[in-house]
């Protein structure tokens, strides 16, 4: 059978599917559906230096082929994660990625330092959350700020460092290069696109935060385009995400240039999606005599 294993920054994943941060909590809920080892890895709910309450509800709205969310990084804080969740996660036989989000550069550095002393496998630096007032995406929208924060965090981060990029930028290739040149081991992309829905009767935005992050199949073509552009710009591996729902989407994203994949919104319609996507991917590879995921990565033949 085809080999689904992938290696990102020296870390081996049993398959290329990683649960995307914010859609999967710290894994406990979905472990009531299936063993978490069906996933190559889990990117945990974004954590901050101190506990955060998140935004007032409603925090979600459905859109054509997608959703808008503005949870606002509700989480118990980095220390709680290390003390209460990490050991359990590490027993699940899957790669554990801590996703960190800060208000300030100092926050990111402190968290990277704390997590470097833990047994987490990788750190994903979220500089692309559109739903918090300070920090988040403000670090992710210019080459200077992406480069600056990557450089700063790199000093404290002894684990492989993934930088998660925002699609809300004018030139994704330049942003990706900035992360690479300042020491990112990998990039993950795309976070959500900023969007809005309004109730036409009350004239109120459906989400209390007014705006939210758009995800789901609606953003998939945007994600494919951006992964392709980033693939042409950098040598470090890209973890592709944004609306992947089927095994065909997974193959397409790999061909565009991704070395591994994250899936998120699809869990809400089908909790079993990773199992189905892996089965389809394996069958496709077998039928097309593709021996490894790496053979697919970036195999696009552009016009």
């Amino acid at each position, binding site marked *: 059978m085809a080999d689904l294993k992938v290696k990102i920054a020296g870390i081996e994943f049993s398959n290329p599917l990683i649960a995307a941060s*914010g*859609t*999967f*909590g710290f894994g406990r*809920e*979905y472990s*009531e*559906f*299936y063993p978490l080892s069906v996933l190559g890895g889990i990117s945990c*709910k974004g954590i901050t230096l101190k506990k955060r*309450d*998140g*935004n*007032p*509800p*409603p*925090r*979600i*709205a*459905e*859109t054509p*082929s*997608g*959703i808008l*969310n503005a*949870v606002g990084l*509700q989480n118990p804080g980095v220390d709680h994660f290390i003390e209460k969740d990490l050991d359990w996660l590490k027993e699940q036989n899957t790669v554990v990625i801590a996703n960190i989000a800060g208000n300030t550069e100092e926050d990111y550095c402190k968290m990277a330092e704390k997590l470097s002393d833990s047994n987490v496998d990788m750190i994903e630096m979220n500089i692309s959350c559109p739903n918090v007032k300070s920090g988040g995406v403000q670090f992710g929208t210019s080459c200077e700020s992406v480069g600056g924060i990557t450089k700063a965090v790199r000093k404290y981060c002894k684990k492989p460092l993934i930088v998660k990029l925002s699609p809300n930028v004018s030139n994704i290739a330049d942003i990706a290069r900035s992360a690479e040149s300042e020491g990112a081991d990998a990039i993950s992309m795309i976070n959500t696109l900023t969007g809005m829905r309004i109730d036409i009767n009350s004239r109120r935005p*459906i989400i209390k935060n007014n705006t939210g992050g758009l995800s*789901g*199949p609606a953003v998939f073509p945007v994600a494919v385009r951006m992964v392709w552009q980033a693939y042409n710009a950098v040598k470090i591996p890209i973890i592709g995400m944004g609306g992947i729902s089927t095994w065909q989407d997974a193959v397409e994203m790999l061909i565009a240039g991704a070395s591994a994949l994250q899936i998120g*919104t699809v*869990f*809400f*319609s*089908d*909790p*079993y999606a990773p199992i189905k996507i892996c089965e389809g991917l394996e069958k496709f590879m077998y039928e097309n005599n593709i021996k490894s995921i790496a053979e697919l990565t970036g195999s696009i033949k552009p016009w």
Partner: protein
Amino acid sequence: MKYDSQSFKLIKNDEIAKGIFDWTVKNSNLSSVAKAGQFVHIAVPGKTLRRPISICDADKDTLRLVFQVKGEGTQIMSQQKIGTYIDIIAPLGNGFKTEKGKRYCLIGGGIGVPPMLYTAKQTDNPLVITGFRNKELVILQEDFKKCGAELVLTTDDGTAGIHGFVTDVLKEKINEIDEICACGPIPMLKAIAQVAKEFNKPCQVSLEERMGCGVGACLVCACKVKQENGEEEYLHVCKNGPVFNAEEVVF
């Protein structure tokens, strides 16, 4: 494994009031028998999100689900044909806690009435107060009578039953009951919680919020509750609820 998503065969789909549909779905391999006040999460063809619907009644291998058409998703659900297989995660959430020997007042408002039927079946001689906007929206009256409940009907405009609010009836009969369970619109739940506090009766309320995963992972269906130490925090309707002690809810 606590959770399971399964195919249920739709064996009944009737419009029992304007825009309100009454489903019965069947599955012989139900992982666990539903408790009163729990809900199910229904996959809707062509939609990204599932639709959370409260359990109106349950048996060993069937679930009765009564829902109101409110948008595109529930519209699609209402048009499903008998014999169709529906992908449902069930049962979810905590449900109402009821004890033998207590007399319960079960209050439902509008589309909050259905979960009170299954609750009524699990309690002895309950007082059931149902409130609706008007006579066109009245549902499930015969079902409550059949299960032996003392039933009161109210409408906001007086076109059926008592002209008034469920809380008017609750106040009148407050000395006849030990505890309150309620489901319905937030203003109604808030008013019921105030009455319960005033007369020192325990009260459980079932909340609703726009929902994502349905199992507690995505954290979107937040509701504010007061902890024992007085601090307020966001819990989640799908995992920590949908039923909460009225005292802890910050309305």
